[in-house]
């Protein structure tokens, strides 16, 4: 199952690259640098999905005390940090030619950096506590509290005056994207979700094997 998911994710990423570089036309205002969107937006949506699973796993662990939920939360947190890091780096690289700066303390950028640091802290906490029950319990509390930041990141562009553009998708208004750009974006989002599912499946399996061998 995991193997098939891996091949599907690889195929999805290839189709996504073709959609982003060959199918989608050059954007009229920004030029080809806009193609970073097909990496940046799927990365942040995948990070939201990962941290949503941390929240779900954390609540379910506190309710049931089943270690499987803690494994799901810990694994999703690790992969979420990876995709948040990609979001920040790709956004920074996109920002330099379009805004003239690698970084600015805009509400969206700052809240995303806080999101990244919260979940790095979550992973550090997990690595510092040896007792599995205490680790799962404390991590679950941080996993639930950390999720408060997800809507703040997403709606920051509406709540504060921001340099960052409004949400391309998942916003209250219809997406301003032309159809070919939107299609290429959706293909890449599907590819990233497949990749996330594959990495999560492998990471959870490793965590389960580690617990059995201890």
């Amino acid at each position: 199952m995991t193997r098939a998911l891996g091949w599907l994710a690889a195929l999805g990423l290839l189709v996504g690259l073709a959609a982003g570089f060959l199918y989608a036309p050059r954007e009229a205002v920004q030029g080809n640098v806009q193609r970073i969107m097909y990496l940046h937006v799927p990365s942040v949506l995948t990070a939201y999905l990962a941290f949503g699973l941390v929240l779900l796993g954390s609540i379910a662990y506190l309710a049931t005390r089943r270690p499987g939920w803690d494994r799901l939360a810990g694994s999703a947190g690790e992969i979420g940090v990876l995709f948040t890091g990609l979001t920040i780096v790709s956004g920074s690289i996109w920002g330099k030619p379009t805004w003239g700066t690698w970084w600015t303390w805009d509400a969206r950028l700052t809240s995303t950096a806080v999101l990244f640091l919260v979940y790095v802290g979550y992973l550090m906490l997990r690595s510092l506590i040896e007792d599995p029950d205490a680790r799962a319990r404390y991590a679950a509390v941080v996993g639930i509290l950390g999720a408060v930041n997800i809507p703040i990141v997403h709606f920051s562009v509406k709540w504060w005056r921001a340099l960052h553009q409004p949400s391309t998708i998942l916003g209250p208004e219809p997406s301003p994207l032309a159809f070919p750009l939107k299609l290429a974006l959706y293909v890449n989002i599907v590819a990233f979700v497949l990749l996330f599912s594959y990495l999560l499946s492998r990471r959870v399996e490793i965590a389960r094997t580690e617990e059995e061998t201890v």
Partner: protein
Amino acid sequence: MPDNWAYVFAAYGIAAVALFGYWRHLARRARALTQPRPAPKARPA
């Protein structure tokens, strides 16, 4: 606006390295778990 291809390739290149690196990290960890552990050395009497 100029095309800035260098920025595009830098973003995709860094993403490819990060994702491939994480995948390799998971593969190594899984392999280490499936390999049999060496038996502990017997203490001299």
